[in-house]
Every structure is written in C-alpha cells, then in structure tokens.
C-alpha cells in the first residue's frame, strides 16, 4: 500500500471528524467555532460552546492547528459540496453554515468507519484535555528518566523540554528512596494501567516513549508503520491516555506512583502566569491583599498586579470585594467619556475614595470582555 493513499486516508478521517464536530454547530455558530475548539482556545465563548454542544472530545485535539490549514479544510469541504456558507440576514447575528445531505451521509457512515463513540467515550468534561497534556508530558519524561536511571547514565537529552515538567520530574526523583520506588515500581504500574487498552493502542503509546533502548517514534513514523492516518492515530493515543488517567483515578491505591502524575501543582490556572495563579488560589479563599502578600512573601503591589491579570483573564472571578459593580460601571463610563485609559485622568474625576487598583480592575474587566468579543469577530 503506498503513502499516497495515506494522504487520502488523512483527508477522509479529517473530513469525517470535522463534519461530526460541526453537526451541532450548523446554523448556530460560525465555521470558525470548531477551529477554536480544536485548538483549545480558553475564551468563554469557546468553553461555552464545548459544554453546550458536548464537544469535549474535540477540545484541544489539535492545539497547533494553523488557521491557514483550517481554512484549507473548510475550503475542501465546500469544494466537495459538503458545507455551504450561509449569510445571516438578521442584523447582529454572525454568518453560519449548513451541512449538505451528502455530509450527513458521511457523518452517519463515520461511526462504522472510525468508531468515534468508542474513542470519545472517556471525554466527558472539558478539563480532560488539560489533564491529558499534563499527564503525557510527565509520563514521557519520567519514563525516559527512569530508563536512564536504570542504566546509571543520566547524561541524556530530555525529549520533554518544558521546564515545569522537568522540575516536577526532578522533584519526584530527588532522593534515593524516591528514586528506588520509581525504578522498581514504574514498569509494573505502567503494565497495569495500559493493559486494559486495546493491543494496538498499547503499542502506539509504547512506541512513542523514549529511553535507553529506543528513541521513540514520531506520529508520522507511527502512521507509516501502521498505515493509518496520522490524525486518526493521534486521536486513538489521546483516547488511550484518557483511559489510563481514568483507570489510575479510579484505583489510586493501586497506582501510588502514577497517581502523582495527575496532581496539579498548587491548583495552577493555565490562563494565568504561575505566580498570579498562586495568588488566585488565595484570593478565592477570601484572603486580603495584605494576607496574600504576607503568605507568599511578595509585595502588595505585585498582588494588585495579579488581581488585574485575574480580572482580565478569568471572567468567573468575583471581584466585588475590591470593586462593586456600580463603581465599575462608573469608571468605565468616565473612561469612555474622556476617551482615555490613563489612570491619573480617570482618578481626578472620581476623587480620593477610589483607588488606582479599582480603576485598573474596572478597565481590565471591560477589556477582558472586549477581547473575547474581538476574537469571535
């Protein structure tokens, strides 16, 4: 079998996948909506769509998908008469699209072809995507490191370059006892968590590992060997990892080592900088700025910067402790009237009772909302 058919297989798979994902969005959302979901955008609108239409398996499936590649996909769907763009007559509503009979036909056949409902089964919440990413980075690096530890050779090039993961693994293996536990127990726990998977998925995940005895395979190498579309393999591996996570979560006692891979460091929020997310944890517990500054050993001014960042990025945050809704509205009005965001000018209009922090929070809230809107445009 030649690779040109591999190319065709990739398109056939992508076509089924996108059409299936677009089914609930047709007539409701723009064609870009699924793109944002596949990339895993962290904006409110996207997350709402994921929940509303239960598109959890799609969320962050291809975090590196380029806009131009997505446009090519949409173009091809149109070319094959599967998708028709639709202009919205009513003002204020965004243009959407419809899927043709032929597309619906493909969607119904795709279940038999690709078994989507089986692969999608472990995806029941949007945060599984983040969990998979974290789990996979840690798993890959700990396997590579332990493999080298067993050979007594630690001068290797880590495949996972992400610093946070590297720090985490270093911490795991910091002393002799911990190293002993990992070197002695990792293989057994891997065996138990992987054996419920189908053999073919076991093999795919295994072949991606790096260590002394193997460099690991890339997705395209796996695809050449299995003669399956790379995106299809990618989806199966993701599902395999999600199932492993499930298995470990449901039997933590049996996986003392691997369950450590699931823990989130200090409730880190991926939308925020590391430091701001630590502040966010404390702010959610109701600590004051002074308390947060004291507990974290940072300046109150820095905590204020973090709160502004939180106001900008985390629309669900209740900042009323620092800024009432009425005051926020007033600040925004003044800023608009003056046509400026300069804090000093706004403060001059408000008088001494209002702090710079409050003005910054109000402007950040407004901006956060606008950025969401702009991205959807």
């Amino acid at each position, binding site marked *: 079998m030649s690779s040109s058919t591999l190319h065709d297989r990739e398109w056939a798979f992508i076509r089924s996948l996108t059409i299936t994902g677009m089914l609930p969005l047709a007539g409701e959302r723009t064609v870009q909506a699924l793109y944002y979901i596949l990339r895993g955008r962290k904006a409110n609108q996207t997350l709402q769509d994921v929940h509303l239409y239960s598109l959890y398996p799609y969320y962050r499936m291809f975090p*590196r998908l380029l806009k131009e590649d997505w446009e090519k996909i949409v173009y091809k769907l149109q070319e094959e008469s599967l998708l028709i763009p639709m202009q919205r007559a009513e003002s204020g509503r965004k243009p959407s699209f419809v899927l043709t009979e032929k597309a619906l036909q493909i969607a119904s056949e795709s279940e038999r072809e690709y078994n989507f409902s089986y692969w999608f089964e472990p995806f029941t919440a949007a945060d599984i995507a983040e969990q998979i990413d974290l789990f996979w980075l840690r798993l890959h690096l700990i396997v590579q490191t332990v*493999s080298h530890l067993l050979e007594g050779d630690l001068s290797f090039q880590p495949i996972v370059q992400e610093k946070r993961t590297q720090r985490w693994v270093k911490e795991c293996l910091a002393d002799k006892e911990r190293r002993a536990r990992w070197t002695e127990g*990792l293989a057994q726990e891997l065996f138990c968590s992987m054996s419920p998977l189908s*053999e073919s998925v076991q*093999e795919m995940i*295994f072949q991606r590992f790096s260590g002394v005895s193997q460099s*690991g*395979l*890339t997705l395209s190498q796996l695809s050449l060997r299995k003669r399956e579309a790379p995106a299809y393999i990618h989806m199966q591996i993701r599902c395999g990892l999600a199932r492993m996570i499930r298995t470990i979560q449901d039997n933590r006692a049996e996986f003392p080592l691997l369950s450590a891979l699931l823990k989130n460091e200090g409730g880190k929020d991926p939308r925020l900088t590391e430091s701001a997310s630590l502040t966010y944890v404390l702010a959610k517990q109701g600590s004051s700025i002074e308390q947060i500054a004291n507990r974290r050993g940072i300046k109150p001014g820095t905590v204020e910067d973090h709160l502004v960042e939180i106001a900008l990025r985390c629309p669900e945050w209740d900042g009323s402790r620092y800024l009432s809704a009425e005051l926020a509205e007033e600040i925004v009005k003044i800023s608009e009237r003056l046509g400026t965001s300069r804090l000093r000018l706004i403060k001059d209009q408000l008088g001494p009772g209002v702090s710079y922090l409050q003005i910054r929070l109000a402007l*950040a809230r407004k901006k956060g909302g606008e950025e969401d809107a702009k991205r959807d445009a």
Partner: protein
Amino acid sequence: MQKETLDLRLGDLLKRHFGYSSFRPGQWEIIERILRGENVLGLMATGGGKSVTYQLPALYLPGTAVVVSPLISLMTDQVQQLRGKRKIPAAYINSTMEPAETRERLFEISRGAYKLIYVSPEKLQNSAVQKALVRAGVSMLAIDEAHCISQWGHDFRTDYLRLPQVVQSLGSPPVLAVTATATPGVKAEICDLFDIKQENVITQPLNRENIAIDVILAESEADRRQMVKKSIDELQGPGIVYCSTRQTVELLVAEYQLSGKKSVHGYHGGMSSMERMVVQTQFLRGELDAIIATNAFGMGIDKSDIRFVLHYHFPPSLEAYAQEIGRVGRDGKAGYAGLYYVPEDRLIHTHLQEKEYPTTEQALRFLQGLSQAGTKPISELAMHDIPEEMAALLFFYAELAGIVSDVAAGREEYRYELSDASQMGNLAEKASQMIEAMEKPKWLKRQKLLEMLRWLEGNECYRMRLNRYFGELDHTSSAACCSHCGLDRSAYLDKSGSRTERTGKNAWNLRKALEKLLPNKKGGSIF
C-alpha cells in the same frame, strides 16, 4: 609560569575534564593569551571548538568566569553537559527562571560556588546579578556569538551593545569574544568595542579542506526535486537537506517516502517541541539517514560524522551557507555539500524577508494588544493574526521605540513593563516609528541576498570566493575543491548499498516491551 609547565597543566585539564588528547588549531593560542590577561577575539568555525577556549581558562583561573550567550537552549545544554559528564560546577541565569530561583542562584554565585556562569545579555545588565558576580570575583568574561554586537551583522542584538560598559562594572576582567561568522568589518567593530589588539585576534582557518562544494544548476522545480531525491538515495549518509520553507520540507518528505530507499524525517518549526527532540535524538543515534529541514535544524547539534549537506533552496546569505555546510565532516573525513540552484528561488527569499517583518497594521494591532498587566501569552498573538516568530521582533522594536522596557521572553508568554509613552494614545505614530526603524536591517538582508546570488552566479572557484568573503585567502582542499574546479561526485556515494533495517516486527507483548524499556537490574522479572 614556564611555557612547558603551563602546557602540561592545561593538557592535563583538557584530558581530565574534557577527555581530549590535544588542542584543535587556535584553541591553545586563545587560551594562552587569556591566561596572560589579554583581551582576545577568537574566530573559529561552527564546531571548531570555541567552548573549550573559555571553559578551560575558567577552570584554571581563580574566581568565576562569566559566559554571555544569546540562546537559552544552548545555554542550558552546555550547563547540563558541564555539570554531568565534565564534573565542572556551572550554572546559568536567564529570564525563564522564577524570581525565587534567581535569588537563590545569585546567593550561591556570590558564595563562589561556581566556576562558570552562563548568562543572557539582558540579565547581565541587572545590577543584582552584577553585584553577585563581583562578589565572587570575575575571572574572565566570554562573549559567545560575539558578532551579535555588530549592527552590521545579521543577528544584531541591542543587549550586546551595552556589554562594554558591563565589563567595567565587573572589574575589567579579560574579555574573550568568540564567533564563527565575522566579516572584516564586524571583526574591526568587535576589536574596537572591547579594546582587542591586532595580535590578539586568533583566526582558525575558516577553510574546511575536507568539504567539497558542488553547485548544480537545475532547470526547473521538477528537475531539481528529481535530482535531490536521487541524491538522498545515493549519497553516503548521514546528511541534512535544507529547504527554505516548511511546505517544501513536508512536500519533499512526503514525496521521498513514496519511492525513496533511505529513512528520512522532516524537521521544522511547525512541529511540536517533543517531535523535534525525538527526530533529533534519532538522528544523533544514527537511526536516520537524512533529515529534511528548515534552518531551524542544526544549531547546537553535536554530530561529527555528518557526510553531506544538500541545499534544496540556496540560503539567504553566505554566512548562513558557511554555517550550514560547516556541519559536514567535523570528524575530518571527506564530506559533500551540494546546492541545487534554481535562480527563481530568489523570489522565495524576498517573499520570506517581507513576511518576516510586520506591516504597520500588525505593529499597531500588537501595540493595542499590550496590557497593563505586563504579560502577553504567545498563544494570544496568533489570535491577533501575528505569527509567533514575529513576537520577538515586535517586542524588540517596541523597546527601541520606548514603549516597553525589561522585556523577558518565557516559554509561553512575554513579560514587560509598559512605559508611560504607551499611554499617550498615539499608537499609530508609534507603530510607524517602529516600522521605520526596521528599514535598515531589511536593507541589510537584501544586500546579503545579493552577495549570495553573486557567489552563485560567479565564474571562479567557489571555495576561494567563499573564503574571500570572510577575509581569508587560503583555499586549499584535501579531497576535492568545488564544481568549478571539477569534482567527482561518485566519491561521495553510498557504497554499502544497504542500510541497517529496524528490527523486524514481532508479535506485540506489553510485558516484554516494558521489560526491555525499563529493565529490572536486580535480575529476574519485575512482574
């Protein structure tokens, strides 16, 4: 100290810490001068062995040696190597570190815990960093990739310009500037800035005697593709094939895999960092015959037995060309550099150079997107239709224009201070000011491209003209010279014919597979 005893001691350190039995050309000359307290400029080819010229004196001299390096990834690699294999106490300071981590590291430095500190140029401006280093006592300051200081160089960095002042704040230790790519003008500029005497400029011959330079005129795109695929099949590997765009890499890989005999893999900036590392590891382990790559591949790759480099497209400058073919044959054995010349490729480069720089509109959108909070996630740029690769450039020029300061690039986001100027409202004016400042480097790049074309079109020995561009007259060759002087391609063909195939397919067994990957050293089965 007597020359003989110094020789012995240095030779001993070289053997003990690095495992080398002799110095490469130029290394001893540089080291000896640094130990005498001279400022030195070392010009050595990529892979020529520049690192040893500061790592060895660092061990020998009392105090801590400071190494300025522009690339964070190279910095971490080197420190890892020094600490691991070579048992040399070394550390780095750069902008990816957490404040707490930095504070701790600075404390260790001031205690004199390290023989070598790698630091990014912007961090070296920081007064806390300087204070810690002064306390430890700076034995020497090494500046890697020193050509970055030249405004006429292709990698100009403003942080480098402030280095001469830093030398003074560090107590004027001897300075060692090293680089692989300096034209006579750049050389003069570096000597001037760091007060380096003519007799302390050490030039390792740039000429790579063992590499044959072949330039092949192709009539069309199809013609070229055919030839390149054939060469990958026939040439003795391992090798690298350079293309100018990701699309070409992907296309060539896909086509080659339809009919090609060897095992190849693509490599470009669009791949995830894990995939890139896997490919690199396979290549270093000798599991791939060729890598088909953009220029993203090669920096810091330490592989001495690369037998060929092919250029599918010609590179945009002679500097880049010299660097890329310089990866061939570092083991001293004969190697081959083949460039497939299609004159129309110049359009690709003019297009890429246009795309590399932002439009006024993009600059404006970028400025509008800067937030008071002082952080910008890289992922957000894409949403504003600004390519990731452009971010560094935009921040750089925004800093020049006084809109931001203290820019620090992390893996996922940029941090910066927004200056008052950004509040002035007139962002459009600022944006066009930024665009104007980009005119000079753009012009420079066009000149470099013209030099490259002149070289390709020229009618004399390619080696002689390449070396002359860098101010070197020697152009001897040990195997074959170039396609102008005449060369026999068959000398570089793969004679073994077959390559080692990966182990055949066995029936899948999870238990066995895991036992192989994570073998139980205590004997017996882990299960």
